[in-house]
């Protein structure tokens, strides 16, 4: 089965590569063994939030201070500036509205009640321009009775530090009785499905409006618009007071919607998306990857001119760690982090952990390497790359989006 390009991994990186290539006429396939990290997405795409423990105000400027082998340095500052600028329109074409600026981080209120710097925020959520003030003084936090994934007390404590007085109220409605029967199913996605399907929205808005008498702002968990995006603007219109949505414990409603819309965009452009299939091995000839074998397709190998590895980090098993080594499980590519196991961890849990920088090694053009030799037509993008601690830096989505767009450009050259 022959394609122009095959991408291994269907998360943010794989879909970004696939969409970009398909937009320019390439016949692409994505193979993904399961759903991706986008399902846990907070609603904000981070470019760079912290360097050496210091909060970053201008990500594009601060990138210059990162280590030479950081993926951003390898993309290059000029490319970074240009590509970062493209991202909002790129997402918009898939039906995803994000706003923000790569020259200036804005802030979002986290479910822990803290202001966090970020790059692009999805339209569901509220952007704040400063971290030490909240535009309203009296906030009402509403939760659904029996919903354990929204920690209202953290939010209350956080807002107190910003001089906001808050009250917490619970709402119960008969439409949720069915999912409440089973406490483990009272999850944000199931609540969102109830709102997606029926009449619950009007009744809920009515209750919220009654309760919010005397408050300046209403705070709710983001449980609106799983498959029906319209619901987000409807709830915003129906609640009379200003409305601030906050992420709940994953899986995330805006995250799943994003995953679905990106996948649909890819398919609408003619891309083939193989979900639930695992890439098992590669077949190489003269420093080129000619074909891959997958679990479902067996002896019918998938062939392409170029391949992109976007298989994610430890969580998605793009990289695997055992007691004594770290390795890339599909092709056995070179990784950084093959060092002595005792040096992986810093005793202090919250320090910058060495193992978090582990990932697949590449040359300056993002070619994968085997025994120090670059593979001509195998590129690497996203969180499977080494050289960054996305969690510590707040650079997760930035690395995924920008290395992927950059790699797609290398292929299109």
């Amino acid at each position, binding site marked *: 089965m022959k394609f122009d390009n095959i991408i291994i991994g269907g998360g943010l990186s794989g879909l970004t590569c696939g969409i970009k290539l398909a937009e320019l006429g390439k016949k692409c396939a994505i193979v993904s063994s399961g759903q991706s990290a986008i399902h846990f997405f907070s609603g904000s795409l981070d470019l760079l939030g912290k360097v050496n423990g210091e909060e970053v105000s201008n990500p594009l400027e601060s990138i210059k201070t990162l280590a030479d082998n950081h993926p951003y340095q390898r993309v290059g500052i000029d490319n970074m500036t240009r590509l970062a600028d493209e991202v909002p329109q790129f997402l918009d074409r898939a039906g995803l509205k994000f706003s923000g600026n790569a020259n200036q981080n804005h802030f979002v209120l986290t479910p822990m009640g803290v202001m966090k710097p970020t790059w692009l925020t999805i339209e569901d959520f509220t952007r704040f321009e400063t971290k030490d003030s909240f535009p309203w003084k009296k906030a009402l936090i509403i939760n659904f009775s029996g919903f354990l994934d929204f920690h209202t007390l953290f939010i209350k404590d956080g807002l107190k530090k910003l001089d906001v007085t808050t009250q917490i109220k619970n709402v119960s409605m008969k439409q949720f009785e069915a999912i409440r029967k089973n406490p483990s199913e009272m999850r944000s996605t199931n609540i969102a499905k109830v709102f997606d399907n029926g009449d619950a929205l009007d009744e809920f808005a009515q209750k919220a409006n009654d309760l919010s008498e005397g408050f300046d702002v209403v705070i709710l968990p983001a449980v609106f618009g799983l498959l029906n995006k319209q619901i987000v603007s409807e709830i915003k219109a129906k609640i009379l007071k200003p409305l601030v949505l906050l992420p709940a414990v994953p899986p995330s409603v805006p995250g799943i919607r994003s995953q679905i819309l990106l996948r649909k965009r890819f398919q609408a452009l003619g891309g083939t998306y193989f979900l639930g299939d695992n890439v098992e091995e590669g077949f190489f000839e003269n420093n080129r990857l000619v074909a891959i074998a997958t679990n479902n397709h067996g002896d019918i190998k998938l062939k392409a001119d170029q391949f992109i590895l976007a298989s994610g980090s430890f*969580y998605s098993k793009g990289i*695997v760690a055992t007691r004594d080594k770290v390795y890339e*499980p599909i092709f056995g590519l070179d990784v950084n982090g093959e060092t002595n196991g005792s040096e992986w961890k810093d005793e202090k849990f919250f320090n910058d952990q060495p193992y978090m920088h582990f990932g697949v090694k590449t040359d300056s053009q993002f070619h994968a390497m085997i025994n120090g030799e670059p593979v001509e037509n195998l590129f690497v993008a996203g969180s499977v790359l080494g050289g960054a601690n996305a969690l510590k830096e707040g650079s997760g989505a930035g690395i995924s989006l920008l290395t992927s767009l950059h790699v797609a450009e290398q292929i299109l050259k």
Partner: protein
Amino acid sequence: MKKEIFEPFNVSDNNFEQCVKCTICTVYCPVLEVNPDYPGPKQSGPDGERLRLKDASFYDEALKLCLNCKRCEVACPHGVKIGDIIQLARIKYSKKKPKVRDMILANTDIVGTMASTFAPIVNPIVALKPVRRIMDSVLKIDHHRIFPKYAGLRFESWYRRYAEKKQNDFKKHVSYFHGCYVNYNFPQLGKDLIKIMNACGYGVHLLEKEKCCGVALISNGLIKQATKQALHNVEAFKKSIVDKNMPVISTSSTCIFTIRDEYPHLLGIKNDEIRDESELATRFLYRLIDSGKLKLVFKKNYKKRIAYHTPCHMEKLGWSIYSTSLLRMIPGVDFMALESLCCGIAGTYGFKKENYETSQGVGKPLFEQIESSKADFVATDCETCKWQIEMSTSLKVQHPISILAEALDVEATMKLWNA
């Protein structure tokens, strides 16, 4: 560094330990969405398994609400065999005895043999409203359901009478597992397959007595009988694949999925010797075309808009690409893929009165897509999806093999491959 195979270590027979409790599977379960009595894949699968291992009384009869669609498995980022865990739990712990109704629905071949013998009488009778009411109240088979018609002349008899002799004239050969549906309800699909394979230079043979794959027996809890039939089939497949070097192809995605994956996973029957060479006809044809060993010539005047529906087991197999690629090769086809969603029938599940509402609720988003597709008809590889879609929408459904057979220029193709 050398390549390594990543093999997670599991203590249990199935791999529920791999679950990280991310709940992604629950987002994609079609039953959970419409029937709150169902505990959902995570709770019924890996979470429940932990409890059941401690104490069998934690088994919840609501697990029978699982459609076994495996859409949860396709979504799980950690490869947990959620659907298998649930089905195995039903097999191991369920105390509910199958009802007479379940036996009737499950024994597709015995009922099929009787019904097709008396097809002219049975068809009009089971279609009668009062009869359907009685079946509804006595047997609890929902009266909205219309039984698929039984054919007068069974496929096997037709084959022996009209097709068998010719098959030895070809140089290459395959065996055909036709399944109950082709045999009793829709022999035309089997005839279409033979037409295509013959045009491509292949003789088509039947197995030495095939038995129903047993999917309905498994889902209705008749495990002993399912195991017996499965053992028989594996032997019959071996005779073709191992002894005669003839691969086995089928036109039913569910039969082939059951034989390849459910036999070893649910019934514990080894099928290593036959698994790789038991596959769908569309995959067999695709492989030949992809490797340059075959080219199909199509009629110039075939013009249709076709909407393809991915059956759940095709989604799990990952094989819809083969059927859709073949359909796209037909020059006059205006092709559209429907978003892959469960139709709700799940074999015999939707025929049961108690499941009717869930079944239609699950299928609703698919039906809406179909109604707005502006297609001439729907294409799909599964016979029960066909019934469900035809009962629930205004469009007819055709199998990709039948579409290919209609669009194929038989003579031109023959000339290329029967020199």
